[in-house]
């Protein structure tokens, strides 16, 4: 009788164990996407990100495993690593003295969308240039 109970308990825990394993596998499933040289060329990374050996899905989380179908991540995605817009503005505080801080401009404050200027897979585009075409190159370096 006792051995039957033990067996039952053992079976119960075995099933529970297997279930938890299956569960964790589902949770951890990030598509195994192989980064080929062609893919790397098509979707180049900015050097500061390239250096960190990111995988596609580190940013394009939950977007499947076909890079062609990946969507641009929004501010929330960028800020999941880069903290907050205020934090980014504060990092360029020295520019505030001359009102040239692109992350805290007198027009928009720290409120612009990241992708008004920054693009990961193509050349970034400094929005300040659309009006201050001559000055921007004195105020800051090319937008990373």
């Amino acid at each position, binding site marked *: 009788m006792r051995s039957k109970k033990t067996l039952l308990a053992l079976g119960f825990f075995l099933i529970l164990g297997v279930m938890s394993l299956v569960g964790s596998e589902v949770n951890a499933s990030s598509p195994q996407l192989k980064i080929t040289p062609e893919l790397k060329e098509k979707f180049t990374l900015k050097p500061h990100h390239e*250096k*960190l*050996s*990111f995988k596609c899905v*580190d940013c394009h989380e939950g977007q499947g495993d076909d890079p062609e179908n990946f969507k641009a991540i929004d501010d929330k995605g960028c800020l*999941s*690593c880069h903290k907050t817009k205020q934090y980014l503005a*504060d*990092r*360029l*505080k*020295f*520019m505030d*003295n*001359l009102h*040239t801080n692109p992350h805290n401009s007198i027009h928009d404050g720290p409120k612009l969308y990241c992708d008004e200027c920054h693009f990961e897979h193509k050349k970034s585009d400094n929005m300040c240039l659309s009006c201050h075409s001559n000055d921007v190159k*004195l*105020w*800051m*370096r090319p937008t990373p």
Partner: protein
Amino acid sequence: MIKKIFLIIKNNMLLTVLVGVLVGLLSSWILYEGLHRTSDDKFCVVCHEMKPMVAAYHNDVHGGAGKIGIKVTCVTCHLPHDNVFAYIATKARNGAVEGAIHFFGNVDAIDWQANRANRAHFVKDEACVGCHTNYKTNEAISEQGRKMHAHYDSLKDTAKEISCASCHVEVGHKGLRSMLNYYKPEYEYYKGKLDKKKEEAEKKLAEELKK
């Protein structure tokens, strides 16, 4: 002569052991005090060209600006901790090199902004992990943060290894880029226009170092 010394030692074993222990303890104490007293911002800044770095450090949680006021010293993060001999050797070498630069080098030619790119070399990961022991599991770290820490771990001991400071760019020195700009603007346009900020920073730094 040597034979004579051996004979003395042999006849006075207890005394020899006692003297040996005393000499050992004394030299350990001198070494400890020596290392300890030459490890903080107040000492390092005497020779090391690092005023803006110290000023930014005082604004950081690692420099005592946190709620609790905990402060780690320069050597906590900037010297290797994997073995004590490497620690002492690096400390001695840095001391000699920094002293030489301070007294004989061309300090104005140092490009501090460019040096920031070498931060992974200047910040020792084992030091970070020495305090931040639960960086992989700490629930106070965002989910993305923990994911990235797992990524860091997966690259460890590979050719693509990254370091804590690869991502944590101003760690230990809050607002370092700005502070460096107050001392030496990185763009021509700002030259001479941030001097007031530098003065403010210098004043605060002098007060902090007096504490």
